[in-house]
């Protein structure tokens, strides 16, 4: 059955994930050519509805849509009358009247893209909603890992940081589990929920977590802006306990582990400068793969089908 929306990873089956990742590969090959554009979405309109500030995800979607020859419009949320949830419904009705084909939405309210999807015939892509889901990030992470481990079954990914507030941790661990990888969380006790998913191991001590022998260390951005209250005493203390500094980087290098990060990084918090130059850092590849994966998602969805 054709898929109208991409709201989360939980609703994707293994076959559909594999299909999306397979579709992303030829799009990535395009990037090495002088003409990086294909006419797949010519005449289609893509609307960017970002209620939260974002540079990377926003540009990535915009580039992806343009490389598919779609027309991209930015709905200027900052300068519109939109300030809170109540008006989302009116906005979507307006967009529906404009006959937009795709709506790419980011919002701080968990679940809001799903609410929008029910109100419109356009395909809705969740570009991050609260602490709920970030499905295209998960797809690009999976794509990046599969490039390094063509058969990733049983490989181990240690996600470090603010798990509680992270939609990336939720979506990426969900997709990795679906692809047969093992996932563990490491972070301060106040930011790694005790009642998270049952099949994910929980660490609060860095050395204990390294004994688990991960293949990939996935660092999350410490999102100070999302912490309405204090979850750890200081940045210095966080970096000491959970950050990857020079000494820990040396150990990671010795073990030959990959490092990933969804960006933007906080130098001196979750990682040190040297991580950015580490030969097995996949951070820049994640950005490139993000465009390919988002092209695959836009190409895959069918506006107007039943949600």
């Amino acid at each position, binding site marked *: 059955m054709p898929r109208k929306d991409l709201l989360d990873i939980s609703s994707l089956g293994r076959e559909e994930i594999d299909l999306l990742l397979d579709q992303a590969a030829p799009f990535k090959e395009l990037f090495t050519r002088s003409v990086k554009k294909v006419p797949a979405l010519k005449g289609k309109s893509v609307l960017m509805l970002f209620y939260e500030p974002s540079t990377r995800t926003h540009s990535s979607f915009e580039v992806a849509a343009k490389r598919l020859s779609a027309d991209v419009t930015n709905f200027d949320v900052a300068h519109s009358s939109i300030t809170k*949830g109540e008006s*989302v419904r009116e906005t979507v009705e307006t967009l529906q009247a404009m006959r937009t084909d795709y709506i790419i939405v980011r919002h701080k*309210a968990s679940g809001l893209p799903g*609410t929008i999807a029910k109100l419109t015939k356009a395909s809705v892509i969740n570009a991050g909603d609260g*602490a709920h889901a970030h499905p295209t990030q998960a797809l690009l992470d999976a794509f990046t890992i599969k490039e390094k481990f063509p058969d990733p079954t049983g490989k181990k990914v240690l996600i470090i940081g603010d798990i509680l507030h992270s939609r990336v941790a*939720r979506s990426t661990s969900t997709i990795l589990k679906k692809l047969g990888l093992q996932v563990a969380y490491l972070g301060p006790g106040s930011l790694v929920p005790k*009642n998270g998913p049952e099949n994910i191991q929980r660490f609060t001590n860095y050395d204990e977590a390294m004994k688990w022998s991960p293949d990939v260390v996935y660092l999350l951005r410490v999102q100070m802006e999302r912490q309405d209250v204090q979850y750890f005493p200081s940045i210095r203390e966080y970096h000491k306990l959970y950050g990857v500094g020079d000494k820990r980087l040396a150990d990671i290098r010795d073990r030959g582990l990959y490092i990933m990060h969804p960006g933007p990084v906080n130098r001196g918090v979750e990682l040190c400068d040297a991580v950015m130059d580490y030969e097995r850092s996949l951070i820049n590849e994640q950005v490139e793969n993000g465009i390919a994966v988002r092209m695959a998602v836009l190409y895959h969805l069918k506006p107007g089908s039943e949600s």
Partner: protein
Amino acid sequence: MLLIQNARIASEHSADLTHGDVLIEDAKIKSIGQGLSAPTGAKIIDAKNRIMMPAMFDAHVHFREPGFEAKETIASGAESAINGGITGVVMMPNTNPTIDSATVVGQVLDIAKRTARIPVYTSGCVTKGRHGKELAGIDGMRNLGVKMLTDDGDTTGDPAVLLRAMQYASEFDMFFASHCEVPELAGPRALNEGVTSYRLGIKGSPACAEEIIIDRDIRLAHAAGAHIHIQHVSSKLGMETIAWWKSRGDVKVTAEVAPHHLLFIDEDIGDYDTHYKMNPPLRTKADNEALLQGLIDGVFDLIATDHAPHTPFEKSQDFVSAPNGITGLDTALVSLYHHFIATGKFGWDLLIKRYSAEPRRMMGLEVPTITEGSPADLILFDTEKETTFTKEFMKSKSQNTPFLDKTLKGSVDLVVLGDEILLER
């Protein structure tokens, strides 16, 4: 005059039903017996073995008038109650303006008298505007019949304010009802902290946020010598806290449980279904089971719905923005029959005790029974029929209930109050 023949009669005192005809005259039950003959001019209803019992009484409803009439008016709320076999309610004071003075109480009771077909009682605020700072106009409200003081919707935050209010108002034979949560722990989101809150990516409200205030407010009542009523308990530990205080026997504490906290859990929220969003939130299967046992054991004195209507637009917002609460009056009795009585979990006697008699006793009202001389305040319930809770069927102005369009066993077929038949199906 009304003769109801062939009824199976239930009471709070026995699980066994008796069989008989019931003659109602001058708003009272005149006689009960076998093969009663109808006096001239009497209307005759054949109950055909349907169950007759005293009508229910709901001590926790939000009727939204004045201030939020798009959600519910006193008139529509009363019709919703009648539709569910309920002939008396106690309104909560979180209207706009809040019910915190004789003026507003007078206004509310006047609207009720003019527009509602059942008695509508109201609670009054503990503090002005429910702000938790200054005491409300307690004596003026008492003179108009207010018995229950509560800042429901919120906890009275400052324990010193609540303690003083308790010391003051207990002298007037008034009692306090507490909505329990520590705001700093609960946050603004009515969602249990657990696997579901993690999955949905919304920070949850832990059960301890409720349990702490349950204990705090009973302790304050203990210190002040006041009667404290704990509203809509949602957690096992909260219930055990109440049971412990009751076992001590040195403080007058009563408590209520809402049908939804017996029936649903946080996982039922599924994909952000706001029809499962209320405060205190739905918790776990273990809590459901413990609360049911608490109801059976008498830790809970009464059942109350916390009927909380909101418009479809308000409930169609994202989960965090959508307001807390679900409706309950249209659905409570049928849902309790369907899930608990029909399945043998408890009998009609318990239901009548907890949803008809005890709430009236708490309010100091006469308790109707199906006995000769009792005021006519009764219903007929059909256990064979089914009820489908469509938008059209429900009389509340709002339809924010998990039972919307669901079909359940049982039907409220007749509601009689005094000389009037309020509902006949």
